[in-house]
């Protein structure tokens, strides 16, 4: 284990890449590995590692709501947004 830790990161990465590539080239083995990692609850972790090694970003699920801009709105939503702004502006003027 100590020896493994002493290896440079890129060597470990290359070993992992090689291993994954070999598994990848054996479809049945790969499906078996996928099934096992899913059963063990490790699929997400493995997928993240795999994606990182392959350079493909893995995005976890998240909700959209915050960080929206008016460019993200459908025409109907934009109309509501415009009405909201207009009503607020009217109120502001009324209140001086």
């Amino acid at each position: 284990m100590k020896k493994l830790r002493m290896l440079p990161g890129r060597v470990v990465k290359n070993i992992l890449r090689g291993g994954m590539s070999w598994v990848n080239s054996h479809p049945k083995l790969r499906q078996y590995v996928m099934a096992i990692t899913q059963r063990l609850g490790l699929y997400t972790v493995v997928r993240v590692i795999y994606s990182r090694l392959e350079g493909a970003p893995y995005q976890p699920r998240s909700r959209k709501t915050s960080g929206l801009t008016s460019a993200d709105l459908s025409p109907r939503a934009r109309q509501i947004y415009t009405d909201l702004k207009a009503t607020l502006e009217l109120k502001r003027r009324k209140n001086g």
Partner: protein
Amino acid sequence: MRIVIDMQGAQSISRFRGIGRYSLALALAMSRNAGEHEIWLALNGAFPESIPGIRQAFDGLIPQERIRIFEVAAPVTEVERANRWRICASEKIREFFLQQLKPDVVLVSSLFEGYADNAVTSVGAFAAQQLTAVILYDLIPLLNQKNYLTNEAQRDYYLRKVESLKKADLLLAISEATQSEAITSLQAAQNQVVNISAAVDERFRSIALSKERIHQLRSHYGFARKMVMYAPGGFDQRKNFEGLISAYSMLSAALRADHQLVIVGNMNVDKHDYLIKLSKRAGLDRDELILTGYISDEELVEFYNLATLFVFSSKHEGFGLPVLEAMACGTPVIGSNCTSIPEVIGLPDALFDPFSPQDIAEKMARALGDQSFRDKLRAHGLSQAKSFTWDGCAIQAIDALEKLVQAKRSALASTDNSGTVPELIQAITDIDDAGKPTDSDLVTVADCVAFNTGRITPRQLLLDISEIVQRDAKSGIQRVVRSLLREFIENPPQDMEVRPIYFDGMRYKYANTFTAAFTGRQPRGETDEVVDFCQDDIYLALDLNAHLTDKVHDIHMRLQCCGIRLYFIVYDILLVQHPEWWPKGTSVIFEAWLRSISEVATGLFCISEAVAEEVRAWLKQNPPQRLSGPRVSSFHLGADVENSLPSKGIPEGAQAVLDALNVNPSFLMVGTIEPRKGHAQALAAFELLWEQGIAVNLVIVGKRGWLVDKLIDRLSQHPELNRRLFWLEGISDEFLEKVYAACTCLLVASEGEGFGLPLIEAAQHNKPIIARDIPVLREVAGEHAFYFKGRSPKDLADTITFWLALNRKGAHPKSEGMHYLTWQESALQLKKQLGFDVAHKGRKC
């Protein structure tokens, strides 16, 4: 009567607690006992992870269309003061949403929500006329404010909820004690609060544990003696650990030597240390008190069944669910004589004064030392537990709601109860005491209101054509996309609006510009607007957009949660079955897409039953992380070339080629030159035939693909090229028609296909077919092709020789009469699988 149940109690942080179980179990029981009433569920979209489970729980009980999602202007956690305006706006948005469902009454499963998550509850914040009932679990913080409402934010939050509670038309209390507390502390009218009680699910029952299992539990949790159990269901002061531990220390040495006190439930380190300190102070040995920490529900049932005695020393409960759970498991139970606990236990002899350790100790001593008393407690507990059922709770709840609606109907009949969006906008802009909204708040609110209110226009059938909008690669898939798109636009399903859409890298947009060019009609808008997704819309991905997976997966997840049905066409899954047939890395992208769609799709439409079978097998080996997988079905592609928008053009020298093909029997291969298509085997087979002096031509129509460099070299430098070997690269559909006519037989040597359109094209030209014996080709061609096996050149050469002999006798299988669909019929099949009522039939060549 339409009852809309706000299910946030089963979605929020509470879903991990008794409130969550109660909310779900009661709503399920109400659905089972609804009779002529309609049950609708309102779910908060801010808890997407809870939605699939709730949908599945109600599957078959209520139509999925009655499960409606609403969005709130998150973040709206009450603990953050900065969220105040968004909370107030969201309360109005939610009430407006509920109003749009036209309920006779709204039932709020849990009002005291949203302090630390994005749950939003209120009564009378917008829809003051709306009849609202609330499940009331307890008012313990209100009655013990010094202990429970210790900080200002908590206090403000709780008291605001109490004000909402007071506006409710009906409170459904979970015990007589809570009912009584509500009447007293809220000054509610007697008939305004009804006890509907509570129940436990069927998991809590008497079970026999094996010796091995008992040994496992004992060694894992460190108890060796008989168990005196307490499952407090929380660790606040009222749970009375002090009284219980003190009482336990008063037991005789003999009883203590025979038993251990086991406190079950999750607790933090501070609580753990506190209880250890308490036990030390009471003079208990370290091994006399066992603290299990978190245990699973299954283990909880086992603990109840193992316990010699269950002691419930709490001083204040809304109901006291652990008491009922223990009794249902046949555990002898003693408990406090205050609040709701006596009505749950139902046996005065089993009660003690929780404020007197001496009284608790005496009752424990009696129960532990007297077998006949324990037998009595056990028998009574089992019988008493049977009187608490979810169906009973539901019937009482529905009865109370019926009475409420009947009583208020005449008063409400004259009131206009339907709010409008302008009214909502006015109400939101009238929020004065919660700070000012930012522009981002207004955007979020507008987005929520638009989603929640839905459209007046018909539902949308959204056809995702993200790939073809960017570029038409003229691939087989894109030919399908074009053909189906045209059919759907020309003949939209009834009451649906067909809208082609695409992903622009940030969001989905209507493909207005593309559609105008495609149909030759006026564009629907000046620009491609952002898609207005609404519940009940249908999304169908016609294109294969594997490269977009990472960007669209979360959007698809959200759409799925929001009740939009998502369907994908699966052309084949060869990339995961045979990644070696494609350039390195291609299969990774495809597999990510397949995994993504298997997680979000309502259904996968495969272009043949063979592909559907393969997808089902793949899903079995790679189960998606969801409660139930997508429905997998198949449809067939159309094959009427005239409706495939064929390309035109005859190249120079075409006639010379056609003339050459007419000289000898010519075998035609159609499709991109790629490893799976079997071109290498075919070329080698024909070289053998030519060596044997057999006069035959091999005609390859198809573009150069990938991983075929050597083969391309062989083809382009072949001595028979343009003599007996012809390679026609990138020819138009018009010229292909003529090539078909000039050839003798279609050769399909492919080792993997999604459908096999050239088989039908050959049949339309009355050309015989030689095909590799694989399921999909058999599915398409049936008895109308001559099949071969084997991968060696000789296997195929022998097949062709044999076929030529059959052909000379006219005994080869004929392609005439092969069944196929037009694109119109193909689209009809697809529409049927989308749930539209259509009839379709195939035709014969």
